[in-house]
């Protein structure tokens, strides 16, 4: 019997957001006949509504396709998806570890972007065969020759034979499929050896429990096997194995080289961590696969039920989200201003935005989020260390010896005409340039050492705005570093509102204080009395604005007996009042909490 493995190809598609990864995947699925064109929903793989809307992938999808090559053989293609954002670097690396090759999609009109590069490096770390493809070749602004050169120069992979495709129109996809057969190596591994299978994703299914996406490196697994997760050392009995094609299809077993799913009555996704190795309890492997890492939250914020929303409902929703998202966690906390709520940890800002948006959209909840914060390492006079992620928990300044803040290594890739403005915004955000390289004549990669605190605030918005969307960013945690940070408080009508408190660098306190006061002045409606808005550091007031008392709120003309119009207006006013949050005597609209975080171009 010839080796089944020579007819398997396991690969990922790596691309920058918008470069057409999902569209290309759709086209491949369609062309290999998995889903008829009629049933094709745009971007089959992005199956969360939110994902499709934002054009990014959050939860992974994996799909098995059968491709009949011109060489007369049928090949099994396992397309392993990767999430598309800097917050999910570790997940990307595990998905890539499950492959032998990566199809690198580069937009022929845009060229290589920082994020593409970051993912290419991850793929190289996993020793994958990298196969470039130029997409969007149908657009008049496509410049394939230049981009080919750019790929060879920047990434150092041969691109002269890179297929030219238009995922949108389907042209060139055939060539690409043939090329996958030729260039991407078949998996190796021994189905007789002890089981070694990599978990590269998982999700929770109401009927089956946790469904693990896995790549089998060695051995075989089937229903009834007792498996052991080597890093967490937990045991489960396998209830089902199968493949995604793209819906789940049960199979007898999964063997070395194959990609599929395993169900084993696991209750929480957190118990089947991405990167962990599955082995058989009876005949375990000697050591787990390399690369396991426990994911760490980098960004924290408070999530509170908005006025009229029930605490229990928010809690239920957060629990449901957590079941499916090992990187997200939360615990109860209270705020004097906002009452009972939750402190939540995220991989990054995008991850946070996604969770908040899902709460609002999928669970129809209205929530207030407080300023995101990183985790500060507070070293006290007595030498003890406290990790603080909520500004309100910062110990008394008298007890603090010093505070350390997390630093990241940021790679920013921009067309050269934007270098100046990028340097400016990095400078403003306390970035230190490590070095700068011209990767092509026109494109520059800037390497910065930056406080994470500055990155999570509005850096990405600023970058996009200053480079008209052409700049891209990738970052990873590097270390903790002592820093002069202070707690900035906001007072409304002389009362501190803890939900607005934030930890900022000393040098930024004035500017931020002023900015927040100005924003709040715009947003807080007039009251019957003057409302002073103040920013303070310790006892010192560093910025002040005043919302003047209102004098007029009257519609003079009521036209032709159109009472309904007037009624609607009054109802709107009343509705607006409901969305207000009462702090002492001051009413604050809920959007105030997000508005103070927004990047302001005119600043």
């Amino acid at each position, binding site marked *: 019997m010839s080796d089944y493995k020579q007819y398997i190809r396991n690969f990922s598609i790596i691309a920058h957001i918008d470069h057409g990864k999902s569209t290309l995947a759709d086209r491949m699925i369609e062309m290999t006949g998995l889903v008829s064109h009629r049933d094709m929903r745009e971007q089959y793989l992005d199956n969360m509504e939110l994902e499709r809307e934002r054009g990014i992938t959050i939860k992974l999808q994996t799909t098995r396709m059968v491709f009949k090559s011109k060489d007369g053989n049928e090949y099994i293609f396992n397309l392993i998806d990767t999430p598309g954002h800097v917050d999910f670097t570790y997940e990307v690396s595990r998905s890539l570890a499950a492959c032998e090759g990566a199809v690198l999609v580069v937009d022929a009109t845009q060229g290589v972007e920082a994020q593409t590069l970051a993912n290419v490096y991850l793929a190289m770390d996993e020793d994958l065969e990298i196969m470039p493809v130029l997409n969007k070749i149908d657009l008049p602004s496509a410049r394939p020759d230049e981009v080919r050169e750019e790929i060879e120069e920047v990434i150092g992979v041969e691109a002269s034979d890179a297929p030219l495709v238009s995922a949108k129109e389907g042209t060139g996809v055939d060539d690409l499929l043939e090329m996958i057969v030729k260039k991407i190596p078949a998996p190796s591994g021994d189905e007789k050896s002890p089981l070694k299978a990599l978990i590269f994703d998982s999700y929770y299914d109401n009927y089956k429990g946790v469904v693990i996406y896995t790549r089998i490196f060695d051995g075989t697994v089937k229903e009834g096997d007792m498996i052991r997760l080597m890093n967490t050392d937990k045991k489960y009995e396998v209830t089902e194995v199968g493949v995604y094609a793209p819906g789940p299809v049960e199979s007898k077993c999964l063997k070395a080289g194959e990609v599929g799913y395993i169900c084993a009555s696991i209750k929480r996704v957190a118990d089947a961590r991405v990167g962990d190795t599955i082995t058989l309890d009876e005949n375990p492997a000697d050591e787990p696969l390399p690369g396991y890492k426990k994911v760490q939250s980098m960004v924290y914020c408070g999530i509170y039920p908005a006025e009229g929303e029930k605490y229990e409902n928010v809690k239920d929703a957060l629990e449901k989200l957590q079941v499916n998202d090992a990187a997200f966690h939360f615990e109860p906390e209270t705020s004097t201003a906002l009452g009972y709520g939750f402190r939540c940890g995220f991989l990054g800002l995008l991850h946070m935005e996604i969770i908040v948006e899902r709460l609002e959209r999928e669970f129809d909840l209205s929530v207030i989020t407080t300023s995101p914060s990183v985790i500060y390492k507070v070293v006290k006079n007595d030498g003890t260390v406290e990790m603080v992620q909520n500004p309100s928990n910062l110990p008394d300044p008298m007890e603090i010896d010093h505070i350390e803040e997390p630093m990241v290594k940021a790679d920013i890739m921009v067309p050269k005409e934007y270098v100046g403005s990028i340097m400016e915004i990095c400078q403003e955000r306390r970035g230190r340039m490590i070095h700068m390289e011209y990767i092509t004549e026109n494109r520059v990669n800037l390497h910065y050492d930056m406080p994470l605190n500055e990155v999570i605030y509005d850096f990405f918005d600023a970058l996009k705005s200053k480079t008209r969307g052409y700049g891209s960013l990738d970052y990873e945690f590097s270390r903790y570093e002592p820093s002069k940070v202070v707690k900035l408080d906001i007072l409304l009508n002389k009362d501190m509102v803890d939900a607005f408190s934030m930890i900022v660098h000393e040098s930024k306190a004035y500017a931020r204080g002023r900015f927040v006061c100005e924003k709040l002045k715009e947003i807080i409606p007039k009251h*019957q009395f003057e409302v002073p808005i103040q920013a303070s550091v310790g006892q010192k007031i560093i910025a002040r604005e005043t919302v003047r008392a*209102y*004098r*007029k*709120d*009257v*519609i*003079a*003309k*009521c*036209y*032709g*007996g*159109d*009472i*309904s119009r*007037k*009624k609607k*207006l*009054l*109802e709107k*006013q*009343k509705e607006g*009042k409901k969305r207000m949050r009462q702090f002492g005597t001051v009413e604050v609209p809920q959007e105030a909490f997000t508005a103070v975080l927004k990047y302001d171009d005119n600043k």
Partner: protein
Amino acid sequence: MTITSRENNIGLYVHIPFCLRKCRYCDFLSFECHDETALHQYTDALLREINTRYEEWPYRVVDTIYIGGGTPSILPAEDMSRIMKCILSNFTVAEGSEITIEANPATLDDRKLETYLESGINRISIGTQSFDNSILNLLGRVHDKNDALSAIRMAKKAGFKNVNVDMMFGIPGQTLKMWRDSLRQCVFLRPEHISLYSLQIEEGTQFHRLVENGTMEPTSERVDRIMYHDAIDMIENAGYHHYEISNGALPGFESRHNLKYWSYKEYLGLGPGASSFIGGHRFKNTSSVLEYLKFIKAGLPPVKPEDVEQYTQRDEMGIFVFTGLRKTSGFDIRDFEATFSREFFDVYDPMIITKLRGLIEMDGFVMKLTDKGIDVSNKVMAEFV
């Protein structure tokens, strides 16, 4: 009962949605029209609506009629006369009814005024807005100060014993002095009724665009309120009765038609975009003139199903209160209770009085806005809807 009680009489509102030119602040339903044939056709449609509407409410007695716009005086005199004839020959219009027409100074002449009086119209509301040419020009009005002055004189000379003058304040660029001068001029002419409108910058108007792009600075709320209170003082000192937030009248000349809106009385609206409250229902004619003409041609009531309000009794209670509060005399909560057969303070938390202290006051059974409450009346009214 065979006699229809006066309490039960209805008002008729007739809308003429045409103007010589759209004013730059205007978001009312009106269109530029210089085509007499179109105006005739419109009049024909309106006559048909009057006929069919009458058939729906044959037993209701009309005791106020208000012909508004747009610019009703844009219609040729004979068209207005046809409209009045049609109303009078269909509806039962009570003796001594108040019958008003709105007029733009630039469109009036002696013949039109005579025709109005002959056809039974006995009150005229002149859209003066200001006596300052720079302000009139800024507003995009088609008339100037002299047109306004002569229109008012002509109306009086022709025999109108009840004249209203519309005045507007809070206009960008209008100084306090300009406003006082204009209003002084108005009071000097001694019309029976004065309307004082604070300019609202509404979406979709030229003014709104100018404010949005920063070319126009809206009047500050502070100045707007000084202008308002100044004006109220001025007209009260001249003997006018400030009976409604934006209206003053010499005693006995309070607008009976407008008071219907504020006293939970019924009215029937005719013409596109006109609102009705009758037989316990609230509905509005389609705002599209073309659609209106089509409905009428087909012999159908010009009301789309989505323009019939589905209000609950609680909704109506809110309307009763907020309309009642527009009158400076407020409303009697016993009237509220008689209308809805519910105790006022069962429906509304008595604490509301405390909450709105300084903005509303109770005078026996009467609830009304204080002077301060008038300035923020929306806030007060919003508490009751």
